[in-house]
């Protein structure tokens, strides 16, 4: 709690961001390269799907990131709304495009996987439909930020929207259990533990860690630019006020 309030100060946060960014970028690079090499070259082939199963090593971590980032956005929105935490608001704003991008990657790689596997580019089952809804929620969230002139009002409106949309997250996660879907049911994060073999699980985890570190690096970059943009706006307003007060 104390930590959270400490980093409501943008300058202190920027110092933290500057420290974190190179490290997270390095972890991202190492983990993604390791995960890709392991997954795309060394992991065993599926007895039915052959080499096309290797799309999983991009598709599944991207899907995890899409949900994870929405969760981060919701938590940051809640913090910003409850405590008027300025940096939290900007963290939510900055993560939205990254989350949307991961959702698109998930949908596209899933579609590319579905064509050889299921014989169709798209199917309107529960998992795919709810991921598409997640994409629309991201886009609506970003559009709401743009729609207001006052950034503080925009932050609070967008926070309300993000919190209302959070109901979609458990729906996505459990959609494959609740409905009879074409999409594969939960194999990694189940109550009985992961159902896939270690030789496939490890590259998956490497890619997941790499994507998370990548998200953190890009988030730091975006937050620095958001804070800079906010400072520029403040300077412009002060200049305009001083100008008219002449």
């Amino acid at each position: 709690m104390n930590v959270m309030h400490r980093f409501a100060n943008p300058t202190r946060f920027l110092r933290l961001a500057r420290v974190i960014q190179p490290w997270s970028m390095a972890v991202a690079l190492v983990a993604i390269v390791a995960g890709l090499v392991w997954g795309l070259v060394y992991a065993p082939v599926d007895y039915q799907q052959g080499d096309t199963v290797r799309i999983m090593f991009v598709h599944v971590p991207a899907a995890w990131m899409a949900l994870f980032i929405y969760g981060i956005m919701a938590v940051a929105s809640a913090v910003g709304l409850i405590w008027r935490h300025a940096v939290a608001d900007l963290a939510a704003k900055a993560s939205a495009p990254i989350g949307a991008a991961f959702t698109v990657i998930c949908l596209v790689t899933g579609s590319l996987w579905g064509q050889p596997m299921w014989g169709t580019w798209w199917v309107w089952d529960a998992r795919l439909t709810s991921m598409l809804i997640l994409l629309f929620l991201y886009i609506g969230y970003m559009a709401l930020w743009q729609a207001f002139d006052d950034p503080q009002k925009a932050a609070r409106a967008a926070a309300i929207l993000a919190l209302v949309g959070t109901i979609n997250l458990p729906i996505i996660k459990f959609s494959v259990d609740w409905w009879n879907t074409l999409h594969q049911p939960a194999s990694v994060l189940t109550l009985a533990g992961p159902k896939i073999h270690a030789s496939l699980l490890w590259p998956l985890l490497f890619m997941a860690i790499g994507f998370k570190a990548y998200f953190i690096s890009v988030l730091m970059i975006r937050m620095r630019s958001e804070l800079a943009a906010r400072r520029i706006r403040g300077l412009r307003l002060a200049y305009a006020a001083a100008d008219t007060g002449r």
Partner: protein
Amino acid sequence: MNGFLTVLGHDVGLAYRQGGAALLAVAFFVVVVTLFPLGVGPESEILARISAGVVWTAALLAALLSLDRMFQADLEDGSLDLLAMSPVPMAAVVLAKCAAHWITTGLPLIVAAPVLAILMQMPIEGLPVLLASMLLGTPALSLLGGIGAALTAGIRRGGVLLSLLVLPLYIPVLIFAVAAVDASIGGLAARPHLLLLAAVTLVSSVIAPIAGAAAIRLALE
């Protein structure tokens, strides 16, 4: 309760006196449903197959039409400020406005739906469940739409953004309602789908006043 009823009565009376709200929604409903046979072709089997989805999608879009007027007019002439200052909780005001929207837009759509379903060659077995799904589902449309209307109140060109925000929230309502109707036509149980639809309505009746009140207070600043 008193405040809730007052706001409700005021909004319904206003819509009634201004006229055209209910008629507009029904007219739009009819026009959109009419487009589908013209576009898809008049074969009865195809129309019967898509009838539930078409009727519900058109109802969704018709409900969307009058949403941006929910808070806009009161925000512009200052009555929303007065309501905020009154002892009536803002959540009750939002709930009353959603209820007024349902009475002036949702109910006429429910009345018109069976006629349009027959036009779309829906089998007779589907009609009772269609009515049930509309009774259970249209309040959710008004409530979820109220959240979007509150968030976009006072924004320029808020109407387009409103559709973008509200339609992802409408999708579960559409899915469960159409599943219920299709199940009853196919002889399967419609009850599970109707119960899920009722659950969506109940959850939105809790979330909408809270989120809407927060958004309105934001718009009034």
